[in-house]
């Protein structure tokens, strides 16, 4: 079982400290979720782990080995918030380029229906759903998902949760979203990003105590 560890993450935007001494580990075979208010640094943390941005300091390790730019290793895939694939591509072309598991993906009705339609001709929710599926079933040991449930219809969110669970049998999944009930349902472990630090959450009550939910 592989292990992804993130240590000593410090990140600031100008004088505004966003992340302070963050430590987190994700095992292959588990789903780790984290929550946080708007602008608290959730996406930033995922991007630092992915290696697309750098903070004042960070250490990302795979099985104890330090990796400077994780995305170059191909071991980690990332779903950004703002759309992943060029609009003129079709899901089939994206699957081919990402070398994703097409046999598995084409068992999903939406994948069959939209396989040869450009992303530009789909609704935002369907695009997000299909992008998430392709990232989940692409090669790699770890998957980072930034708001996979946003804009997605509840019926598709209900379908996405078991799919994330299925993928987590063989990969480590780290995800964040504002739909905290879905995050609670899918996660084996949960954290709250608050005051620049990650705090473990065991009970929903703790989210209320720490002011994340009312």
């Amino acid at each position: 079982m592989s292990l992804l560890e993130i240590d000593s993450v410090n990140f600031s935007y100008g004088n505004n400290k966003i992340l302070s001494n963050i430590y987190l580990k994700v095992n292959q075979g588990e789903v780790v979720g984290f929550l946080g208010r708007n602008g608290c640094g959730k996406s930033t943390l995922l991007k630092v782990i992915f290696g697309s941005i750098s903070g004042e300091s960070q250490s990302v390790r795979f099985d104890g080995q330090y990796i400077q730019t994780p995305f170059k290793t191909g071991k980690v895939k990332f779903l950004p918030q703002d759309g992943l694939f060029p609009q003129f591509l079709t899901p089939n072309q994206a699957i081919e380029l990402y070398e994703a598991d097409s046999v598995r993906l084409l068992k999903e009705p939406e994948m069959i229906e939209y396989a040869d339609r450009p992303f530009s001709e789909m609704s935002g929710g369907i695009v997000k759903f299909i992008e998430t599926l392709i990232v989940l079933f692409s090669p790699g040991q770890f998957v980072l998902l930034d708001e996979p449930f946003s804009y997605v219809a509840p019926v598709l969110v209900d379908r996405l949760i078991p799919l994330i669970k299925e993928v987590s049998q063989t990969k480590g999944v780290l995800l964040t979203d504002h739909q905290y009930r879905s995050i609670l349902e899918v996660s084996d472990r949960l954290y709250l990003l608050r005051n620049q630090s990650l705090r473990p959450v065991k009970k929903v009550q703790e989210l209320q105590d720490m002011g994340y939910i009312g």
Partner: protein
Amino acid sequence: MRFAKILSILYRDFIVYNLVFTFAGFWYLFFYGRMSLPYLFWIKVVGFLVLGLWYYQTRRHRFYFYYNLGYSLKALILYSVSLDSGIALLIYIPTNVLAGN
């Protein structure tokens, strides 16, 4: 083959810039000859910098498509510059010969 497809996707992002500047250069080179080469070079450099800044400001999120494929920002810049320069040279060299320079 996969790499060629990725390059073609990358090229689509600056095809307008590439074609406009390359054919403007063709026109200059054909009529003004070799003396226009330094100007063409600097127009290309400045044009590419402006294009890069515009892309970075407006389409930065698109980089994640390439990052997931293992390509860094440096690699993308290198491929873009190579494609742009390669296409320009393919047009400019025969133009230079045709113009009798």
